[in-house]
């Protein structure tokens, strides 16, 4: 499966959660598949989805699901120790690990070579780290939400992108409707 197929499958689970979605094609795919006010789309700032999601989870009690990518986690590796040492129970970091920089032409990342993101998360102090195959993502995400424990999921899948339109929504509108959804 490629990322967009996973997102289609888990859209019914995501719909009821606060979602922080990674820059580029992941946000475009989620926006096209199931736009919700509870989705915070990153339009720029590669690497910070996990940090934004962590700040959000620490600041309020609702569950937060971060949809991140292997390339973006690699560019902000300092996030893993911060998560490992501060992880609240309402935080789920789902790293869609397709071993490539999808938004820039599918150039390979190191996670498709020797680098093991789940091992790095564990070494950084993250207590609940699970590796999941693409086909098992939905049940694994639901189980992580039901467990009430902060979780890092590394979802192994194929490289590839669906062709979706660029998000043209104003960032202040994205932020405003998201904050209203958080507060509701």
């Amino acid at each position: 499966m490629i990322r967009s197929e996973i997102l289609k499958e888990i859209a019914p689970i995501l719909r009821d959660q606060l979602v922080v979605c990674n820059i580029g094609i992941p946000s475009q795919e989620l926006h096209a598949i199931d736009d919700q006010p509870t989705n915070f789309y990153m339009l720029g700032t590669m690497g910070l989805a996990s940090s934004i999601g962590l700040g959000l989870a620490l600041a309020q009690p609702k569950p937060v699901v971060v949809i991140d990518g292997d390339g973006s986690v690699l560019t902000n590796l300092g996030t893993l120790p911060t998560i490992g040492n501060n992880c609240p129970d309402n935080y789920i970091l789902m790293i869609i690990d397709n071993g490539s920089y999808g938004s820039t032409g599918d150039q390979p990342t190191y996670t498709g070579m020797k680098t093991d993101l789940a091992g790095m998360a564990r070494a950084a102090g993250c207590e609940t780290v699970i590796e999941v195959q693409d086909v098992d993502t939905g049940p694994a995400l639901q189980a992580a939400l039901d467990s009430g424990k902060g979780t890092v999921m590394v979802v192994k899948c194929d490289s590839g992108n669906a062709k979706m339109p660029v998000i043209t929504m104003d960032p202040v509108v994205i932020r405003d409707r998201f904050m209203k959804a958080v507060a509701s």
Partner: protein
Amino acid sequence: MSIHTRIVDDLIANDIRFMTTVPCKQLAGVIEEIDNRPEIRHVPANKEDEGMGLCAGAHLGGQRSAIIMQNTALGVTINTLATLIQFYRMPLPMLISYRGEIGEPVACQVEMAVHTKALLAQLHIPTYHFHRRSDVEELDGILKYCFMASKPVAILTDATFWKGELA
């Protein structure tokens, strides 16, 4: 009252409840004071752009947040300031140690000091320079201004300010 207590009192009085820091020798006292205050959740960051992401998330969650950092790190935060904090129009008080100014013992710190105000001006970030101890009187007003405007605001605090001379 110590300058550190005074600063943290103002942060708390302005409802800041989430802070992230990357340390600097000049900021050690204020960071220690933050850790003494149960009103503020302190999440140390490994890099300043990561810290700004944490602050943005706390803001989305309805909490006022702020970052403490050194001016030498301004370079690594330019993209985050432009494409996250400014693009989504979020408030972010930045309490910054202004290394490389008068009294600086380390020559390399001067190399970023000479760019600090120019970079902030290029980003159109309202910038205040605390040099005399009495400049702290402006902090409360600056914080209110920051949240009123929903913009990042920089407070540069130099060595003279922290030494408490020229009061």
